[in-house]
């Protein structure tokens, strides 16, 4: 019978190979699967392509993964951060690639990847340097550019409650990119504050249906990145 629970964060990310493309949920620290990222640092996979809106905070979570030299390329909308020098230093040193994508286009490309839409048109970036190299098209009198769906090998996701079948609900603005990333990855790995009985989540309130989820691991008291940063924590 279907039971997607995994005992440890280490076991949940054990098979991620070098060169994998990984979507990482979260917007800033909200909804960031920090324990899963730390487990990936411990695991050591290299040459990764990471998709996240930002590039992490301080020297924990995604910033620490980048700092550990495990990331070959970042796809994000906003690589600046007030608490992190990790990405800028590597970027200026030519040690990490950057694909800059407007936030809404990033979200839609992920959503499209999950929805079997290989490409779509959008007005975002028209007339700007970010439209360079993109196919343009006039539709009903307005200019658009062509954008392609994004998929990933893995998604690292944080949620509030999950059941053993993999249904998920989120907390407030920690929802952000997590639900769409669940749909766009071959293997979706979820850390949740609580695992509840199957049937305990109201079918009307489930945000991520279990079809999108492969592994669920309970992290009852996740770290809060801003608190770690305030304490000057560096991972590992």
């Amino acid at each position, binding site marked *: 019978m279907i039971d997607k629970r995994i005992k440890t964060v280490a076991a949940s990310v054990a098979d991620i190979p070098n060169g994998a493309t990984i979507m990482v949920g979260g917007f800033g620290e909200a909804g960031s699967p920090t324990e899963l990222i730390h487990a990936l640092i411990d695991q050591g996979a290299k040459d990764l392509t990471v998709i996240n809106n930002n590039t992490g905070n301080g020297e924990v979570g995604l910033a620490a993964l980048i700092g550990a030299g495990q990331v070959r390329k970042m796809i994000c909308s906003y690589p600046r951060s007030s608490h992190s020098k990790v990405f800028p230093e590597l970027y200026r040193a030519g040690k990490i690639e950057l694909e800059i994508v*407007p936030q809404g286009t990033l979200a839609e490309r992920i959503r499209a990847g999950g929805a079997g839409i290989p490409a779509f048109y959008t007005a975002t970036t*028209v007339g700007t340097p970010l439209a360079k190299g993109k196919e343009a098209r006039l539709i009903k009198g307005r200019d658009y550019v062509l954008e392609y769906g994004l998929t990933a090998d893995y998604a690292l996701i944080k949620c509030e409650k999950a059941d053993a079948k993999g249904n998920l609900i989120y907390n*407030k603005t920690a*929802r952000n990119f997590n639900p769409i990333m669940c749909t766009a990855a071959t293997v979706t790995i979820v850390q949740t504050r609580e695992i509840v009985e199957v049937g305990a989540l109201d079918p009307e309130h489930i945000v991520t249906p279990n079809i999108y989820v492969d592994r669920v691991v309970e992290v009852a008291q996740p770290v809060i990145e801003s608190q770690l940063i305030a304490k000057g924590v560096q991972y590992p």
Partner: protein
Amino acid sequence: MSMKGWSREQMAEQVALDIPDGSYVNLGIGIPELVTKFVPEGREFIYHTENGLLGMGPAPTPGQEDPELINAGKKAVTAEPGASYFHHGDSFTMIRGGHIDVCVLGTMQISQHGDLANWSTGAPDAIPAVGGAMDLVAGVKTIFVISQHTTKTGISKLVSTCSYPLTGKAVVSRIYTDLAIIDIKAEGFRLRELAPGISFDEVCAKTDAPLLPPLLLPPIANEKRE
């Protein structure tokens, strides 16, 4: 001491006066955030933040911050009654789909054609970081810009053609500066209102593009001319 020009708060107040009751509003980081303090009596605006909240309220009282309830600037906020949470895909459906009525943004440069440049100086060592700005200017019905008229070194932010990389082309409707409110019209920058103690000539001198005087024909005369 006689007042000269508008303060940041007064600029924000001028913007708030021009937003109709019931509008759905997205506010950029910085001066635009001050708009919430000046909602005119009897009007209600509903605030959207890109990271998945419609019905955003003010910052919580200190100590009540929730790291999972933040705005697009990653600052702690609250949720008003009637608010809703949703994911980033759905959030940008609101933006790109033309459902947000007004977006108020800061800027680095703005051209007489309504081109906006507010995300990069284009300097060779700059790390590009665009966030949601390009989506907002492409999708929101009305884009208002709120900004000091010039840089700290006195260089006009209002220009004939932007030298910085664009955020969007022909997207801005109106600019609110410390010196004036200026409409973007087919014919270029058109003065709408001067700040107290500011002369038309002074605004012209600080604007690096032609500035047209306000259209002074009363509405009735306009009607007659039709």
